[in-house]
């Protein structure tokens, strides 16, 4: 189980040469994600979703609070937690000068997978994502679809328990988005826990078991899509969101 306990992240932003302001990207955020659950983190741009997911993935440290993954805290067991997590963002960039095969090999090596096991695993992944025709091609020569498949394949090389997907469909066309949605559905079927951040409310409604709605760095509601709709007396999550924030979000300010 993945537990986010009162996580707060404070940043300092320079606004002029001698002046800087402090602000909270996330404040006292708590929720949990159980095995096989798809938890949607919803909110407008600037709501604090990416910072929150970065803290959960262990690439940023919270100012206060903690993230517990299967009883382990990032504070002392970050590396062991990272081995159980895959982090994919919509703007994940891959090394341009290597091939998908080399990328998978490098990631597998970082995860400490033995040489023979890794070779087997890579063959399996290449087959599964239909990457055989471009596995030795430089990544900067891949098409958007091939790049997308390579991005996802990188996340599955160590067979993680948890997937953290930060706006993975952002800027993608319908076909490329479907690849991601299908991947989430398959991972869910395999009892993986998925944190799925998006600002596309309809997308979240379709695939998430639970929704954590955030605005201005704070959780405004947690529940299943149905619970949220009922609580806010609306017919969809978009309307629920606006009903909860009274029509004002960070993005609009």
């Amino acid at each position, binding site marked *: 189980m993945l537990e986010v306990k009162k996580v707060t992240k404070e940043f300092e932003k320079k606004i002029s040469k001698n002046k800087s302001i402090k602000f909270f990207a996330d404040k006292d955020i708590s929720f949990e994600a159980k095995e096989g659950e798809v938890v949607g983190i919803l909110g407008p741009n600037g709501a604090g979703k990416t910072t929150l997911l970065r803290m959960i993935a*262990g690439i940023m440290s919270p100012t206060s609070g903690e993230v517990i993954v299967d009883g382990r805290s990032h504070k002392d067991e970050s590396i062991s937690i990272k081995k159980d997590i895959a982090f994919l963002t919509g703007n994940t960039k891959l090394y341009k000068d290597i091939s998908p095969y080399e990328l998978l090999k490098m990631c597998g090596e970082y995860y400490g997978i033995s040489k023979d096991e890794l070779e087997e695993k890579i063959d399996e992944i290449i087959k599964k994502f239909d990457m055989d025709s471009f596995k030795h091609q430089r990544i900067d020569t891949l098409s958007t679809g091939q790049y997308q498949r390579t991005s996802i394949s990188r996340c599955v090389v160590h067979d993680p328990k948890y997937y953290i997907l930060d706006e993975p469909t952002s800027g993608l066309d319908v076909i490329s988005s479907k690849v991601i949605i299908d991947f989430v559905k398959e991972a869910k079927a395999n009892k993986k826990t998925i944190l799925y951040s998006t600002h596309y409310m309809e997308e979240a409604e379709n695939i998430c078991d639970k929704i954590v709605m955030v605005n201005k760095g704070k959780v405004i509601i947690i529940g299943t899509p149905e619970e949220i709709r009922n609580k806010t007396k609306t017919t969809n999550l978009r309307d629920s969101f606006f009903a909860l924030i009274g029509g004002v979000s960070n993005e609009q300010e």
Partner: protein
Amino acid sequence: MNKNNILITVKKELRSMFRDKKTLFMIFGFPFIIAFFIFLMGFMEESMMGDGGTTYKTGFNYEVNEVEKTLLDQYAIDYVYYEEESDLKEAFEAGDISGYVIYDEENKNYSIYTDSSMSGMNVSSYVGYYLDDYNQYLGNLKLVDQNINPEEIYNNFTIELKSIDGEELSTSSFLVELVMSLSFTYIIMAITLAAVNMATSAIAVEKEHGTLETILTLPITTNELIAGKYLANVIIGSIASLIGFALTIVSFIIAKSMFTIYEEFSIGFLAIIWGVVICILASFLIGGLAIAITAKSKSYKEAQAAGQVLNYLCMVPIFMTYLDFKVTTTYYLVPILNYTTLLMDLYTGSFEYINLLITVLSTIVCVGVVLWLLLKTFKSEKVLFGE
């Protein structure tokens, strides 16, 4: 620290570097500039001195006697006779001769015709020397006719050139020192060019392209990541400098057999070993400095601009040679500058082990400080993710 993670990072960085044409040029192409420079300076110096076997075909409208022939030979003037001034002009324009001399018997006047090219300038100088000597020879003949010993007229005193610091004084020694200073500066500069280029792509470009975030999601600590990038930078810097060093030494050895100005250059086995040690020492420090300097840059351009500081710093020893700056033992504490000077010392006979020891100690302290700074810098999320 997980050694495996460091090794994977080193491998990743090196692979990336060896696939980048710009870095490949820095490593393998740049040292050839040093070799070219050594030969160019040797050629230029000997052209100026006229003792490099180069002769200058020069036209004359008069026939010379045996004495004049000897003098012309001495000044590398290849005598060609043309009867008419128009023929001389024509031959010069056709490029058959580098200049010509017209003698006006009536006014007892020699006119030297040439242009502003290097060979033209040499012809004007050497013909001038020959005529001065010949003029003196004719004067001496007149004195002898009057039973006067020319030596009594001219040798009123003697001049002796003495070196204050005990070093041999010659016009070419300064030039050789300058060539060495430039060559060894280029060797150290090869490290900074390669290291800055690598640091730029290892940090700033990774940030710019968003791959730094991707790699941080993997089970690797920032300390391991930075250690891997640093070691890769040291390896690249060492390769660049060792290629430059080897090429410089080979060039000097070949140039020694071709140009007399390099005849004092001597090379021993120990000098090569210490040269290699100095190159590697320099790579350890410059590799770290390059990452530290470019760490806060958010883009390729910003990082390249920041890295220029190191390149400028490397050039200081050249100016020091120009200004004839005398180095003391404490000078060897100054990082970067000490490497070039120590390399020069190896081949100018002024190498002292105490200076090498000071350089080693200074490098160890500086590398320690740089590594501490690097690890501290990369703890900051501002450095990793920007403002």
